[in-house]
């Protein structure tokens, strides 16, 4: 259910997420000190390659990490196994990737592209 490859992928993505989570939380705390509007957020993120890379990487890491973790829970608690387990893992990963990518694109380059 969890082989070496999935185990390593989950650990490595966790490693990637540690600085990203800290950066995200620190930025949130800093940014809302005097209140913040949607406009102000978009003003900072739109067209920013740095924020695109920051949250883009975050989304990829979350998609891999989360889907593998969800796979373990489904196997141990719902007794899902075999091909069904593989498909649900993949669907979860792709789902998270699509949802996350849409959000990142929306706050960085969507306005500029249209």
């Amino acid at each position, binding site marked *: *259910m*969890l*082989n*070496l*490859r*999935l*185990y*390593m992928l989950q650990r490595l993505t966790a490693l990637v997420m540690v600085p990203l989570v800290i950066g995200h939380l620190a930025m949130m705390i800093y940014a809302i000190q005097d209140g913040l509007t949607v406009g102000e957020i978009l003003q900072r993120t739109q067209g920013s390659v740095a924020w695109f890379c920051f949250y883009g990487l975050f989304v990829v890491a979350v998609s891999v990490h989360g889907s593998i973790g969800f796979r373990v829970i489904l*196997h*141990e608690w719902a007794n899902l196994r075999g091909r069904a387990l593989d498909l649900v893992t993949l669907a979860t990963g792709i789902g998270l990737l699509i949802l996350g990518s849409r959000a990142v694109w929306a706050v960085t380059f969507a306005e500029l592209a249209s």
Partner: protein
Amino acid sequence: MTSKDDVLSVSVWRQTDDETGTFQQFDVPRQESQTVLDIVSYIQQNLDSTLTYRFACRVGMCGSCAMMVNGEPRWTCRTHVQKAAVDGKLQIAPLRNLPVIKDLVTDMDPFFDKWTKAEGVHHPSATRHDAIVPVDTTTAQRTIANEGIECINCAICYAACDTVSGNGDYLGPAALQRAWTLVNDERDGGHETVLDAVSQNDGCHNCHSMGSCTHYCPNELNPMKAIAGLKRETAKSWLKW
């Protein structure tokens, strides 16, 4: 005339068919230094001869008498009633995570099959024609190997493991500890084979490090540490790709 303190109220698992069973109540006279195995033997010899259970050495060597005692896995021959009984009551059941054959006897096949699946077998590195190479017992690697060799295959760690409960195919603490011992045994010629075997779908990477195996091991071994060692070694080999 016996008082309440002289009698122990014991409920023992009785298998009624392949799938289910029920607890049967027995009153057993208390004795000094009485073990849980003494209780089971008393019931079988004096109260109900159809009770089935398994034991051999009675001294904590053979690993065959493990059962669930008041919900916890224990070696019954070395467990004093005085320590295990709660409010003068004792509940005795077959080991968790293994199929029950009858009453207190479990089918140990899945447990031992996993030892083989984890490559917990000897992989010769020399032939009988080679000279015997002395083993240096003071090296760090030999010290690690020695930490696991007192395992008596009692399956208490296996019964205690919640990961085995959730994932019936998981190799379990005992088989993985055996694998780790072999990885650190210089006489074994199958280190790569063992690491490969424990890296498969139901291998060491499924361990959640909850530590029940180490907590309940009657020989005070540390399978959780052994599994952590396997995770470390396999991760290193993966990164070398």
